[in-house]
């Protein structure tokens, strides 16, 4: 089958993402749901997460650049990002969010800025892998439907 090498690549990619804690068991739940309901669900969820995360990270950047930081709003945004990342199985992003909330609750601006930097790094890494994953899935779908 023409899609076989792409399937192998996708399997390798996902295995490494699980091994390196980019993804956790929750992502496997989403894969199960996709199997039960048909293709498209994972793509939709991953796309929604990436859009959500980018929006929140931009918002956090703006909030932390204020002369007087509103730590309540920062916390609310981080809480939202932690929720989204947990829902999609983005383990490393979720863990950094927990660290972020801790420094936020201490009203530690420097700590928050450092945590935001770390979140941005983790999310960028994850997003690249998600993009590769979606491209491979699309290639597999296109080849299998021929």
């Amino acid at each position, binding site marked *: 089958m023409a899609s076989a090498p792409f399937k192998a690549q996708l399997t390798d990619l996902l295995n490494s993402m699980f091994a390196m804690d980019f993804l956790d068991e929750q992502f496997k739940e989403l894969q199960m749901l996709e199997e039960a309901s048909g293709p498209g669900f994972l793509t939709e969820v991953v796309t929604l997460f990436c859009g959500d995360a980018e929006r929140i990270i931009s918002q956090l950047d703006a909030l932390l650049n204020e002369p007087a930081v509103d730590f309540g709003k920062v916390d609310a945004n981080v809480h*939202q990002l932690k929720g989204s990342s947990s*829902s999609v199985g983005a383990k490393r992003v979720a863990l950094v969010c927990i660290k972020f909330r801790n420094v936020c609750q201490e009203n530690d601006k420097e700590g928050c800025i450092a945590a935001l930097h770390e979140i941005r790094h983790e999310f960028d890494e994850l997003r690249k892998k998600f993009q590769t994953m979606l491209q491979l899935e699309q290639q597999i779908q296109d080849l299998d439907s021929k």
Partner: protein
Amino acid sequence: MAIETQPQFHVLAVDDSVLDRKLIERLLKTSSYQVTTLDSGTKALEFLGIQDENSENAVSVSPHHQVNLYISFFRKKTQIVLLFCNLMVLIGFTILCCFQEVEVNLIITDYCMPGITGYDLLKKVKESSSLRDIPVVIMSSENIPSRISRCMEEGADEFFLKPVQLSDVSRLKPHILKKSVKCQDENQNQNKSVTTISSPTNNVSGNKRKATDEGICSERIRPRYSAGPVTIV
């Protein structure tokens, strides 16, 4: 032609996160529920027809979202127009009820939402004489024992920690079935009591009213024929 032998239960899912709404919708549909998703407690109250004292819209009876928007617009203009619209809505709703049921077998809601929280929604549902029997499940990403016990004390049937999984959703059916059986039992008891009442007139009319109420309850276990899953965001 397939014949549906099992009634399809309707779950109202409320969550301000679009991602979590997508997830809970997929979980519920995979488990064969009909699903309506809403993004706020305010919209949930409107959908259920519960008056929200904090809302600008003071209309207490109208589950139809578009009719609420219509009424909300006129309210700002004149009181007389609002009263007229309310009357039209009541008439329209009555006619609508003859042809289509919009009933909810279970409500599942996020705890933390801006404005009306999941806890507020739970309270309103349990305070409502017509809706208090609907099982309510709370979801939260935070494992806070005091929050959990507060919700259970207020009448929540389950408390799910997010992310919600298929194994959690499998716990919903007993709550729905328990309420259905309760309605069936009450309906059967009422049917028995109605046949034994003869006079005086007051008692007969009282029982007829009660029979009507139980009729609404018994309809919950009738096979559904509504239009299909609705997503309102």
